[in-house]
């Protein structure tokens, strides 16, 4: 069984800033648990001689030249924003989370 508990789901929801009801937390605990268990099956077939990999394509060092290209206009950048003010994106004040 996976280690997904209702408390962990509640904690993750807090980090993701999603409000979940108790019923949703119960349902997601089961669903996330199943996903984790399914993915964990991979570990059963991965033996010690299979190195961990984050990229399936055997490519490295794909770079870009340091040359400026076109940019979005502020209007285009803000076109998808729910709210904007003074050419800036307007968002709710979020307390205590300055990174």
């Amino acid at each position, binding site marked *: 069984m996976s280690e997904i508990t209702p408390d962990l789901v509640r904690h993750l929801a807090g980090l993701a*800033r999603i409000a979940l009801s108790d019923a949703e937390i119960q349902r997601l605990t089961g669903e996330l648990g199943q996903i984790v268990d399914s993915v964990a099956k991979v570990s059963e077939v991965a033996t010690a001689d299979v190195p961990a990999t984050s990229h399936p394509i055997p490519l490295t060092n794909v770079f870009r030249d*340091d040359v400026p290209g076109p940019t979005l206009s502020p209007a285009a950048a803000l076109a998808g924003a729910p709210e904007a003010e003074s050419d800036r994106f307007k968002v709710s004040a979020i307390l205590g989370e300055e990174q």
Partner: protein
Amino acid sequence: MPRDALMDFDAALEKYEPVLGFEVHVELSTATKMFSDAPNPATGDDAEAAGPNTAITPVDLGLPGSLPVVNETAVRYSISLGLALGCRIAESSRFARKNYFYPDLAKNYQISQYDEPIAFEGEVEVELEDGTVVRVPIERAHMEEDAGKLTHVGGATGRIHGAEYSLVDYNRAGVPLVEIVTKPIYGTAERAPEVGRAYVGAIREIVRGLGISQARMERGNLRCDANVSLRPRGAEKLGTRTETKNVNSLRSVERAVRYEIRRQAAILDGGGTITQETRHWHEDRGETSAGRPKSDADDYRYFPEPDLLPVEPSAELIEELRAALPEAPAVRRRRLKADWGFTDEEFRDVANSGLLVEVAETVAAGAAPAQARKWWTGEIARIANARTTDPAGLISPVHVSEIVAMVENGELTDRLARQVVEAVIDGEGSPAEVVTTRGLQVVSDDSALTAAIDAALAEQPDVLAKIRDGKVQAAGAIIGAVMKQMRGQADAARVRELILERAQS
């Protein structure tokens, strides 16, 4: 807000040993951003000039379908910096997503590096004011992207507390950063604040020497988070640390470390415990205040960035960059001291004010070393002190060299030049522009000076007789009167010459 209880600094050091750690973020001055071809605002002279949300592409906004691609120059700069920090360069290095939900990045994650940084295990030699050398061990230096800027609206102080909403400008989002993380620094004792200042100063010197960042702390090109913990003297176990953010001048690094030592000592001495948290440094009040509780690394749910491929620098590239490294700062200091012909005291005066780079660049721009030193450690340092900021970055070395040249050509007197320095610092333009707009040229027209001398002599007719009697100092009264009439814009030496000529005629 209640003031923190503070223990006397010396008393705190008698009981506790401070352990330091620093995270320094350096904005690289590449032409474009880390993962997009938007222009990099940290490279220009004025990051604000273009207006908000003008230096962005779909990649910087994390729009669907956009993909990041690594800037090769940023990788080269990062490797050079790693080498200059004495680090090993990773044979294989990869990016990771650091997940957090805060609107300073539009993607809900920052592309950073986690388990495979580009550079690791280095050491930086740091020289203190009295010449003592401290070796600061470097844990790692990794590549990442900067975040956007939030303006909090509606709060009384412009800070987030009490704000009604925030406005986001993503121009800075995606600017290439290198984060340099030290290992714990032990054994600094009462010199801990000084070591902090000297370390950040050394990093600034290194990145400026490499020419990979503008490194202006007041503009956020170089930012420092200071970690401080205390443990009873002789104890093995590390105490709980705090991480003080927003420490954005060399002077603040020193003050913030000292403050945290005194604050934590008072808590521990009263039987309390230190809360592991981030704290904010307030330059104006000279104190720190509690920020958020520090998240566990687990909460960032780091995982390898699937959109980017590993970076595997070849041995040839690393050796090419190693060969191109400038002199190490310690070597450079010895050479500059000899080149400039300064005494120990004069050189230390410059170095301890964090002005080596400024003086070197002023000399490179054509000023005599003694003049460069005089202006930076004199008038410019005085203005910086009055404004409680660092002199470096207040004015460009090229402008200082122009002002020195104007004094030497006789276009400006020392007194006028001081006005020009202050006006340039206040953003009134280049020295030449300030001289023109303020009409500060020295009056070098002898006929104008002669007229003023005649007028002064008419008021004090006995002066010429005194001079002829050998009392040359009597000329001072006339020089003073002429300077007053010319509003200081006359060359006093020339006025004196003209008076003496008159006395002999």
